[in-house]
């Protein structure tokens, strides 16, 4: 993420969360936080506890974020922020919480006349393969809540579509037949199927590494009848290190009424 990208990310994030941008140049941005955003990104729970306990006037921070340090010659006072800095991670985390669920309606040209929108459930999954190494995959699925048809790369297809949070007046949308929670279960099953078909030599390899290390460990304690506690500790460490597992996480998702 280049400084420029960080900068526009910040502007977008704060604007979207009703934080007033007090001042801005290409290398910095000064913003008046709201109470909610302060709580999410400023890391000062004790202050907020105090405000709430004493019922005092909340005073959310005003912060200057320096997005391009090389350009900021002079005496600009503020917090340097870049991809990987702790504050940036907090912003990402906040985005994660604040951008998890949507309900959107496709905007349709009024000239077409009366239109009926179909309900879809869209879900973005992150799948992680973990042993002593990791690999992650992102899957975006949509399920048609009338027919049960499943589309891959669903999120990408939405880019071409104009969406709004409220339906236009002349637009009707059909109630779903498949309940969203039921739809979610079907998507979960689709993810499982993809995982089942995938190549899992990574897990086999991890198992081999595990067995090799276990043999070495056993060799060290070969002649010891009563294995000491550190043998068991090492054994457990090997399990935690190499044991293969798959984590499935939902990034975000929502209901989409599409033409």
């Amino acid at each position, binding site marked *: 993420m280049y400084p420029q990208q960080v900068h526009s990310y910040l502007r*977008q*994030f704060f604007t979207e969360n009703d934080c007033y941008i007090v001042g801005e140049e290409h290398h910095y941005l000064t913003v008046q936080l709201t109470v909610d955003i302060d709580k999410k990104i400023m890391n000062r729970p004790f202050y907020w506890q105090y405000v709430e306990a004493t019922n005092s006037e909340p005073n959310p921070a005003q912060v200057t974020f320096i997005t391009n340090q090389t350009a900021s010659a002079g005496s600009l006072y503020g917090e340097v922020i870049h991809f990987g800095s702790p504050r940036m991670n907090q912003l990402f985390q906040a*985005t994660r919480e*604040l951008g998890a669920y949507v309900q959107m309606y496709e905007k349709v040209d009024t000239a077409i006349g009366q239109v009926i929108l179909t309900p879809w459930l869209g879900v973005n999954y992150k799948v992680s393969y973990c042993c*002593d190494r990791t690999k992650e995959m992102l899957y975006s699925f949509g399920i048609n809540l009338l027919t049960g048809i499943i589309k891959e790369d669903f999120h990408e297809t939405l880019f071409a579509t104009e969406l709004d949070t409220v339906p236009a007046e002349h637009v009707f949308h059909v109630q779903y037949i498949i309940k969203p*929670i039921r739809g*979610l279960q079907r998507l979960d099953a689709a993810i499982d199927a993809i995982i089942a078909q995938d190549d899992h030599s990574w897990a086999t390899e991890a198992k081999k590494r595990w067995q090799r290390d276990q043999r070495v460990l056993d060799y060290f304690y070969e002649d010891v009848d009563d294995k000491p506690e550190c043998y068991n500790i090492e054994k457990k460490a090997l399990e935690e290190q190499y044991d293969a597992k798959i984590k499935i*996480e939902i990034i975000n998702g929502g209901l989409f009424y599409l033409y």
Partner: protein
Amino acid sequence: MKIERSSEWEEGFIKKLDHLEKWDSWTLYKMNYDIVKMKLITDFTGLQATKYLPNLKPLTHQLEAAETVIERMNGKAILADEVGLGKTIEAGLILKEYLIRGLVKRALILAPASLINQWIEELNIKFHIPAIAYKKNVPIERYDVLIMSMDTAKKSPHKERIYEQDYDMIIIDEAHKLKNHKTQIYEFVQSLKKKFCLLLTATPIQNDVFELFYLISLLKPGHLGNYDTFQSAFSASKHDLEHNDYLKELVNQVMVRNRREDTGIEWTNRRVQIVPIQFTKEEAEVYDLLGTLQNTGSFSLITLRKEMCSSKEATALTLSKMLEEDNAQSQEVEAILAKLMALEVNSKANKTLEIIEQAQDKVIIFTEYRATQIYLQWYLHSKGITSVLFNGKFNKNKRDYMKHLFKEKAQVLIATEAGGEGINLQFCHHVINYDLPWNPMKLEQRIGRVHRLGQEHDVHIYNLAIANTIEENILALLHTKIDVFEKVVGDLDAILSNFKESV
């Protein structure tokens, strides 16, 4: 295979469906997806950490070391780069990588007390890893990355507190402190769970090959067999061993060692020489008289001889203590003491002065004795040479201040052994090893204070040794130990002299 899925999103979704909560913004939704996509770790191999550390400019050998440890050694390794090549950076990269990949949540770092602040600074500032120093009332369960001194960690009640925690990664700096398997700290580390583990030391062998055996047995017990099989397979005795090629290969499976010359960086030369010195007749006489004493109590003749090679002040201190103890030889001791105090010349100090005057530059002198340290300061002062003292017990502020004084005001820094670790003095190009330690790696650590990244001049090392004394034996033993090191670990930069001498 185990599959873990979280129902968290689903629970939130139900609330939205039931109109209990407002839906989120479409813009934030898209931003969320984009960020996750951008941060996605699409490959089992390769380093992610560098993307997150735009201000850190790791060197090629540091990146390669990190990759090797993660991809070939599965996160358990000895980082044994020569002094000054940035082992801390390598360890930081590896820890960061595991944190990013979610394989490590909590890490424990053990370091000598004098290096704790440096670790905290490096991790927080260079790596954005929030690390905190252990203190008695710090609620350690709330912090993910904890740094503490080995001396604290091995003792109750601290060790119990640490055992209660569940750390995924253990990093041990200056790990040669674990060379002895009978120590408290060794036992402490042995009983720690080591899922991922890094041992940092430039000197995995200091005296003999068993030290390396014990170090590796902490990291990966069984890798070199158990004690008996190790000993018989390599016919290992203290300073000799067979099958060293095979052993070297095994060692290299768990050890990364970069040498200065492998780094692709232009290094300045190391000009090392042994400076032989002759005692005056009077000095030699006292030295010989010391040899006539019987080995008594807690004071060994070896110590006395070494001290005599250093200064009369150091020797006198020990002799006086001998007198305080109930001693059958008190008459002899007093006689020697009288002769000792009558000495007017210190040949070694004279030689030192000569070297300093020739250098016309900043010089570091390492001595093993506090008494010598103070004497040398007085002696140099009497010759119009300014100096500052340095020793390992100084706290960080005092260290920094002494370093500052040395850089700005004084020509000479006189350090005791303990001063060898953790200070960087690239602005100086002359090192005098006034006394020789038994352990060659101590010499390497000393030289490493000066001959490290950032040094722009050739570095001159002077190893002083007095002829016909115990210092000649020490030299011989140092050569033997260096030989074992090179057979098992790999070549070393010049420590004693630029020419390999047969002993």
